[in-house]
């Protein structure tokens, strides 16, 4: 059964219901509305991002729905991203963050996880200056302020 999704810039995308329902937000909307052909507006998502999100949902359409494990290890790892997902996430930074925001808004947990793991992997092992370079961030701390923060957080260094 097809569902029509409408992006912020009024582009229509027709997808299978099964694919659209990877988004819990859309799933709930469809349940509330019932059987209808009317398109679903997604005013928070532009067409370029929506296309990517749909691509992800199509590829993962048959994945089992993740049930949070009550004994899940809080020490989360980010080094277990599948190959397809890794390639999927090889986009420019702006798109990466747009995907994360869209996954958050649309409530697609696996995509949100992958997005955040990807960001975490960019951050890992870098110094503050390297992180600034990686994300085009201007340093608005004075050297004294930076030194003070470093001193304050010393206790967290070894752990």
């Amino acid at each position, binding site marked *: 059964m097809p569902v029509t999704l409408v992006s912020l810039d009024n582009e229509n995308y027709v997808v299978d219901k099964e694919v659209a329902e990877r988004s819990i937000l859309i799933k709930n909307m469809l349940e509330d509305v019932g059987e209808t052909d009317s398109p679903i507006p997604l005013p928070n998502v532009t067409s370029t991002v929506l296309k990517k999100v749909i691509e992800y949902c199509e590829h993962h359409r048959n994945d089992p729905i993740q049930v949070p494990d009550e004994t899940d290890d809080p020490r989360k790892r980010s080094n277990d991203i599948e190959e397809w997902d890794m390639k999927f996430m090889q986009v420019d930074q702006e798109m990466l963050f747009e995907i994360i925001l869209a996954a958050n808004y649309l409530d697609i947990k696996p995509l949100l996880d992958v997005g955040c793991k990807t960001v975490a992997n960019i*951050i890992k092992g870098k110094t503050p200056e390297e992180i*600034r370079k990686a994300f085009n961030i201007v*340093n608005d701390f004075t050297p004294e302020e930076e030194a003070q923060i470093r001193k*304050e957080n010393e206790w967290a260094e070894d752990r």
Partner: protein
Amino acid sequence: MSSALELPEIAAHVGLYLSRRQLATLMQVCKTWNYSFAPLLYRACTIYGNQSKSLSLDTINKYASSIRDLSYEGCLDPSVFSPECSQLVSLTISGRLGRKTDRPLEISTLISQVIRNNSNNLKTFSLQNEPTLSSRGLWVALADCPNMSHIEVENLIILPEDMDVFWKACSMVETLSIVSTMVTLELNRPEEATPSARFPALQRLKIALSEDSTDETHFAILLNAPNLKSLDWRGKITTLFPIDRYRRMMSQRLLPKLQRLRMSSYQLSDQDIALSLDAMTDARELNMRFSIFSDKAYQSLMSRHATTIRVLIFNVANFPTSAMVQSILSSCFSLEILEARLISGTDLVRIGQVEQDGANGPETTENIFLGDDWVCLGLKSLTVNFEMTDNSNREELDDPIGVERLERQHKLEQVHVFRQLSRLTRLEKVNIRSMHKHSQSLDLRLESRGGGLDKLASLKRLEWFQFDWTAQELSREEIDWMLEHWPRLRIVIGTYHRDTEKDRGMQEYFGERLRLRNIEY
């Protein structure tokens, strides 16, 4: 556009994958990120007393509103108990008094003040390692916390005159742990006509009382905790277990909600384990490391708890039998952790002979008996030695048919065990350590070299792989394969090769490759 990280829920989600050190680094990047990640780093703080890099009082005060879990380790320093912390959910004191500091009462009073400042939110309290920190004021303060649900004490000396407030503080908790601490509690207070449940909310109890504690105290708690779900009862091997009282308690079903039972120091008989299992409903955990799990216990387990049991830990020679282990694996679909001595290849698959009436009289045909598939697809941890049919001395047999059958049996066993293991895709720990050096076990070589390792590619969550004393002839190829296919692999314990030189070389190779991979993360 990294303004996405300014959204607290996104920052928090990314922060889940970062270590404390990385969170600290992020706080230096810019002011916005400092603001986003400070609550994540300071949510759980540890103060290592008297170390140069420890949290200062100023820093604690600055981030006090973010701190939820606070832990004091190392040397306890009075100056770092801050009145600003008022959002604590959990407080742990596992530090000790320094040699110079001789004022346990001062520190105890400071702890009491922290408890009082956080009275409304405090849920978890743990006091360990420093015997002199107990004081009346501390337990009174704790008893006033309306949401207190988890108390742990270890190595503490509680004075007899403070015992009543200690028990008052413990009376409404859900989780109680008393380890190496002498406590006394009378079974029946003489002034009470009908003893009321003293621990109505208690669900989880861990007791490892000191040697001076009497049995009376153990049972005074147990018989007054009707909602108990989980019991972890430890003692020294030398302590006599109050078996008669225990039997009475179990046969009278005085712990009707018990689902988890752990008695890892005592040795109970098969009969007593059966009695315990009979008294439990929908049991989830049985950890009787030194007890005799045999026919009666097995019967009780399978008839009452096969569908609900999640954790089974045994470790005694021959108990449970291989047939029992195979049966458990193929019936208990909720199983998550299993530790048993061994399982034989012949219980998984067996070439047998069947007598049938043929056209020319009775014939013997061959049949392959297959053990049932394992149903515990959620299994996370498996510790069992696979005792496979030994084909290593086939040259010594002089019966060609026998040799051929031995070879086939050996091969079938390997195929089937790997097949069963490959279906357990949630495995995080696999330990096939053998009891006898160089015994025949799973052939962990790659298929191209005669083994079955490739089949285990599906175990994507595997972190711990142990195979010591199983006769292997692995090479660097296998190590490379493991690191490639098991992204979460952290620990490998095993003898890669009989030849000690080769083995040492491979241990080093693995260590090096693992280090390189970890550097990336």
